[in-house]
């Protein structure tokens, strides 16, 4: 038996299938003192890592010329929802090379034809 399989995880219905290269908008609940609000973070998914319940994904965005990466636990109850803004074509699972690129070089080609994965999720 394996330790992770002992933990029951329920997938958040507000989190669709997505992968590295996709641009996503992550709505994450944060506490500000007593108040709770939803904060959005939009960027490119550069990696997905780990097995349930410890799976995390990292989103990278560049604002004012400063790269910001945030890592979210997929099975966290604080993860309100994830919206896929754009599907990207990439050839690797970890897009660390984006860190060394900026501007036009850091673009990712969009997947226009609905791929196998997006078809499966729409059914």
């Amino acid at each position, binding site marked *: *038996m*394996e*330790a*992770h399989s*002992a*933990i029951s995880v329920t997938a958040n219905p507000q989190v669709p299938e997505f992968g590295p290269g996709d641009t996503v908008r992550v709505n994450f*609940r944060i506490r500000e003192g007593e108040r709770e609000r939803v904060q959005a973070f939009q960027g490119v998914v550069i990696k997905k890592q780990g097995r349930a*319940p*410890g799976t995390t994904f990292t989103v990278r965005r560049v604002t004012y010329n400063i790269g910001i990466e945030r890592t979210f*636990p997929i*099975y*966290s*109850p*604080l993860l309100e929802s994830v919206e896929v803004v754009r599907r990207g074509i990439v050839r690797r699972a970890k897009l660390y090379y984006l860190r060394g690129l900026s501007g036009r070089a850091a673009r990712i080609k969009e997947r226009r034809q609905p791929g196998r994965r997006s078809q499966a999720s729409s059914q």
Partner: protein
Amino acid sequence: MIRGMLGKKIGMSQVFLPDGRVVPVTVIEAGPCTVTQLRTSDRDGYEAAQLGFTQVKRLNKPLRGHLGRTGLFRHLRELSTDTLDDLHVGQQVNVDLFQVGEKVDVIGTSKGRGFQGTIKRHGFSGGPRTHGQSDRARAPGSIGGTTTPGRVFKGKKMAGHMGNTRITVKNLEVVEVDPERNLLLVKGGVPGAPNSLLTIRKTR
């Protein structure tokens, strides 16, 4: 009631609380155990219950004689009891013995690390790595005086065999109990490698 039971370490994982905090947990396959013998004050001078865990097919003849009626088990351990009144030989002990939120002590055998130096074994800081030093980086330093006392004190921390000893971790919180799969989730780490035998008992 009996105060604990036997189990097998499965490994570690994590659990999310509703407020988003992550709790590190050890997954333990606890029981089912069978009471194989009762120790009574009259006969043995103390009270305890002997538990059997992990059914096996083959066992040597003395143990077959001892366990004949209750089934054959690989592991036998004695555990203290509140009272022997509600226990009888052949009785089953299951994980539902524990409640969520309860504190337990977990006893296991730590991973063997072989012959280790003082830095790993006792947390010594070692010597300087630079300034012309050679062969001093992981040395233990002085181990005592000179003519007085003329010997090394007993119990001086030195290199030697590390691990593979009985370790008790106290006051671990029970996070989840799954009687269907005989699983116990306990907050924090537990000694030993996966698949090793553990004794879980209620904290006094």
